[in-house]
C-alpha cells in the first residue's frame, strides 16, 4: 500500500515498538503531525519546550531501557534539542531524534527555519542521517534504532526534509539490519576474562569501580552476584548508583569529587581496580598522576575508546559488561578453593575499609531550627515507595541525593552525569512518569535548575503525570556559591537568586498543588501531603542557605586530599 513519507515514519516507530513520543509541531513536521492525528498506536506528549521534550525522551529511555523518541521541527525546534541530545550523548542514552528539515531543494539556501542540524549535532550524536528519498525511510529508521541501542548506546538524529514527508512510497520494514562498518564487540574475549579472574584472585585489596555501563547494560544482577560471591567491595560513580545495593555491607557508596571518604581511600590504597562500565572521568579520578598509585587496573567496557583514554590499564576487556561479568561468575565457580583462600587473604582489607567507613561516614550536622537538605533527602527515602524513580537536576541537591539516598536498584536514579545539565530533572521525571504511570516519580531539584524547565508543569498537569517536584530552595546557585566560598574568598558573584519565588502560587497557576516547609518539623508532613496527592505537586523546602556538599576533593587535587569539614 502506498503512503506518504510522514506515515511511513510513524509505521517505522510502531514497528520498533515505540508507544510514546515527545515532540513539538512546526512548519517542517506538520505532515508528521497530520498523520499522527489519526494514528492511535502512538501516544504523543506535547512538552512546552523542545529541550524538555528531548530530556523527557531521555528520562523515558533511562527508566525503561528502551530507545526514547523525540520530534522537533527544523531550525529553532532542532537547535532547542541540542542540549538534551548532548546530555544523552555524554551519558550514553539510546535515543532517536527526528527533526524536520526544509524541502531538499531548499537545503543550503538559508531558507526559513533552516539550520544544518546534522552539522550542529555531529559531535554530540552517535550517528545521524539525512533522509533524501522516501524509499530510504524504513532502512534509515531501522539503522537509527539499531545504532542507538547497540554497543555503547547513544542518541541518533534523523533529519527528515518536508518534501520527503509528502512523497508517496511503499512501506516495508526490514527484518534485520547489516552495517558492515559497525560491528560492536559484545562478547568479552574468554582468555582475557580468564586472566582477569586470575588477577582478581591474586589481589589482596581489590575494588570494583562501577559505572553507568552496568545500569545501561542491565548487568546489576551479575555484578551483585560476583561482588557478593568473592566479597569484593564496590564503589559506584554517580551514573552507577543503583547498580549495586547502596545498603549492602560491601557498598562503599559513590567515589570521586563528592564521594565517600572510604571509597576514595579504598581506590588510593587498592592493589587491583576492576573498572566495570565506567570511564575514569576527571570527577572520579581527581589528579591523574596520583590516582590509584598502587593498583593494577582491569577495565571492562563495550567502548574501546574508553579504555586507556585517561589512565593506564593492565588488562582491557572489550565487551558487553553483562556478558563479561557472567563469564567471570562461571570462571570463578570453577576455582572454588582459590576463592576461599582469596576471601581469607582479604580480611585485613575489609578491616581497613570498615575503619575508613567509621572514621568519616557521609554525615551532616543536624539542626532543629533550619531544614538541612540532607535531612529532606533522608526523609524522602524513608517515606517514598520502594520502587520510586528519582530524577535530579544538577548541583548541590544532586550530590546530596547521591550521598544520602541509598539507591538499591538500577534505573531508579535519572541524573545528568556527564554533561551536568541544569534543567534536566523535571522533564526527565516527566518522561519516566509517562513510561510508568503507576510508579512514584520524584524529581529533586534546586531553585536554580527547576526554573530552567519550569514550564513543563503545564505538561505534567495536562497529561496527568503526577510527578512529585521537590525543590531544595536556598535562593542560591548553591554549588557555584560553594566554590566561591571555598576558593574565591566568598565573592558571591551572580550566584544569589535574590527574587524569592512563591512556588505555591506557581503550582496553583499551573493547576497543581504546592506545599511549603520552612522548619525541620514540617518536613515529614509536607512530604506526606505531597505523596498523598493524586496529581503533580511541588514540595518546597527552605533549606539552610550556606550548607555545603562535603566531603569534597578540590579540582585538581588527589582523591585522598579530601576537604572533610569546612
Amino acid at each position, binding site marked *: 500500500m502506498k503512503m506518504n513519507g510522514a506515515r511511513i515514519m510513524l509505521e517505522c516507530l510502531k514497528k520498533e515498538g515505540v508507544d510514546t513520543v515527545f515532540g513539538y509541531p512546526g512548519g517542517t513536521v506538520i505532515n508528521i503531525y497530520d498523520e499522527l492525528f489519526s494514528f492511535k498506536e502512538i501516544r504523543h506528549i506535547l512538552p512546552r519546550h523542545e529541550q524538555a521534550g528531548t530530556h523527557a525522551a531521555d528520562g523515558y529511555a533511562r527508566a525503561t531501557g528502551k530507545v526514547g523518541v523525540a520530534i522537533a521541527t527544523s531550525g529553532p525546534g532542532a537547535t532547542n534539542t541540542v542540549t538534551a541530545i548532548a546530555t544523552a550523548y555524554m551519558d550514553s542514552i539510546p535515543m532517536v531524534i527526528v527533526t524536520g528539515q526544509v524541502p531538499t531543494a531548499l537545503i543550503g539556501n538559508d531558507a526559513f527555519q533552516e539550520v544544518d542540524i*546534522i*552539522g550542529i549535532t*555531529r*559531535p554530540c550524536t*552517535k*550517528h*545521524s542521517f*539525512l533522509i*533524501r528519498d522516501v524509499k530510504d525511510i524504513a532502512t534509515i529508521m531501522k539503522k537509527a534504532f539499531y*545504532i542507538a541501542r547497540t554497543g555503547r548506546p547513544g542518541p541518533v538524529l534523523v533529519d527528515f526534509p518536508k518534501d520527503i514527508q509528502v512523497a508517496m512510497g511503499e512501506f516495508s520494514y526490514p527484518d534485520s539490519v547489516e*552495517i*558492515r*562498518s*559497525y560491528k560492536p564487540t559484545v562478547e568479552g574475549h574468554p582468555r582475557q576474562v580468564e586472566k582477569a579472574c586470575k588477577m582478581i584472585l591474586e589481589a589482596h585489596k581489590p575494588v570494583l569501580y562501577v559505572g553507568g555501563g552496568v545500569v545501561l547494560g542491565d548487568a546489576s544482577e551479575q555484578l551483585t552476584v560476583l561482588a557478593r560471591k568473592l566479597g569484593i567491595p564496590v564503589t559506584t560513580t554517580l551514573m552507577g548508583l543503583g547498580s549495586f545495593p547502596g545498603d549492602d555491607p560491601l557498598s562503599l557508596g559513590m567515589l570521586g569529587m563528592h564521594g565517600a571518604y572510604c571509597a576514595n581511600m579504598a581506590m588510593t590504597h587498592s592493589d587491583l581496580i576492576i573498572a566495570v562500565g565506567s570511564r575514569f572521568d576527571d570527577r572520579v579520578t581527581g589528579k591523574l598522576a596520583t590516582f590509584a598509585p598502587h593498583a593494577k587496573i582491569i577495565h571492562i567496557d563495550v*567502548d*574501546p*575508546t574508553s579504555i*586507556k*583514554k585517561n589512565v593506564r590499564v593492565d588488562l582491557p576487556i572489550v565487551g558487553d559488561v553483562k556478558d563479561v561479568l557472567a563469564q567471570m561468575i562461571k570462571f570463578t565457580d570453577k576455582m572454588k578453593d582459590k576463592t576461599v583462600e582469596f576471601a581469607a587473604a582479604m580480611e585485613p582489607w575489609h578491616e581497613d575499609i570498615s575503619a575508613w567507613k567509621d572514621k568519616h561516614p557521609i554525615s551532616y550536622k543536624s539542626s532543629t531550627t533550619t531544614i538541612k537538605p540532607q535531612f529532606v533527602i533522608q526523609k524522602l527515602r524513608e517515606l517514598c515507595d520502594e520502587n520510586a524513580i528519582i530524577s535530579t537536576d544538577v548541583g548541590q541537591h544532586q550530590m546530596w541525593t547521591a550521598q544520602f539516598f541509598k539507591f538499591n536498584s538500577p534505573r531508579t536514579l535519572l541524573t545528568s552525569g556527564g554533561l551536568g545539565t541544569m534543567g534536566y530533572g523535571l522533564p526527565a521525571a516527566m518522561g519516566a512518569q509517562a513510561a510508568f504511570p503507576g510508579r512514584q516519580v520524584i524529581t529533586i531539584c534546586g531553585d536554580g535548575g527547576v526554573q530552567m524547565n519550569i514550564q513543563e508543569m503545564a505538561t505534567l498537569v495536562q497529561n496527568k503525570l503526577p510527578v512529585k517536584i521537590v525543590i531544595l530552595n536556598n535562593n542560591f546557585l548553591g554549588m557555584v556559591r560553594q566554590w566561591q566560598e571555598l576558593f574565591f574568598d566568598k565573592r558571591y558573584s551572580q550566584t544569589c537568586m535574590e527574587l524569592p519565588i512563591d512556588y505555591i502560587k506557581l503550582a496553583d497557576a499551573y493547576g497543581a498543588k504546592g506545599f511549603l516547609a520552612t522548619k525541620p518539623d514540617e518536613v515529614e508532613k509536607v512530604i506526606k501531603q505531597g505523596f498523598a496527592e493524586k496529581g503533580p505537586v511541588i514540595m518546597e523546602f527552605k533549606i539552610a542557605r550556606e550548607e555545603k556538599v562535603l566531603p569534597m576533593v578540590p579540582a585538581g587535587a588527589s582523591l585522598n586530599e579530601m576537604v572533610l569539614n569546612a
Partner: protein
Amino acid sequence: MQHTISVMVENEFGVLSRVASLFSGRGFNIDSLSVAPTNEEGLSRMTIVTRGDDKVLEQINKQLNKLIDVLKVIDFTDGSGIEREMALIKVTAEDESRAEVLRIVDIFRAKIIDVTPKSYTIEATGNPLKIDAILDLLRPLGLKELVRTGSVTIGRGAKGWKG
C-alpha cells in the same frame, strides 16, 4: 611522532566532516589529508598524516574505528607502507636560472608541465621528504606557487588491505 593512517570509509553523506570534526573536536592534528573513491563501489579511502605520542595515536585509531561509517583503519607507522605525494610547483625561470631549474627537475625525475618565458610549472612525485628536498632547492630561485596533494600510502607486499 608523525604517523600515516589509511581510513576506509563508506562513501556516505557527510563522512569527510565526521572524520575532520573528530580530529578538531578532540584536539588531534592533521598534517595532511587526501581522499578519493576506491575500486570498490561505495568505499572511499582517506590518507591522514597526523602526529602524537602512542597514547594519542591509540585514541585516534579507536575514535576513528568508532565512527559508524569507518570500515577499517590502517596505521602505517612502522614502515609497512609506501608513501607518495605529488606537488605542482610554479617557479620563476628567467635567463640564467632556467637551466638550473631544468637540472633540478632532471635530478628529481620531475616533469615540466607548463612553460612560459618567465616560468616553469613542475610536477614532482615522491615521498614527502623528496618533495621537501626539491622545494628547498627551488625556493632560492623564486617559488611562485605550490600545491601538494598530501600523502597517499599503500601497504607493501602482495596482500591487499583486506589481508
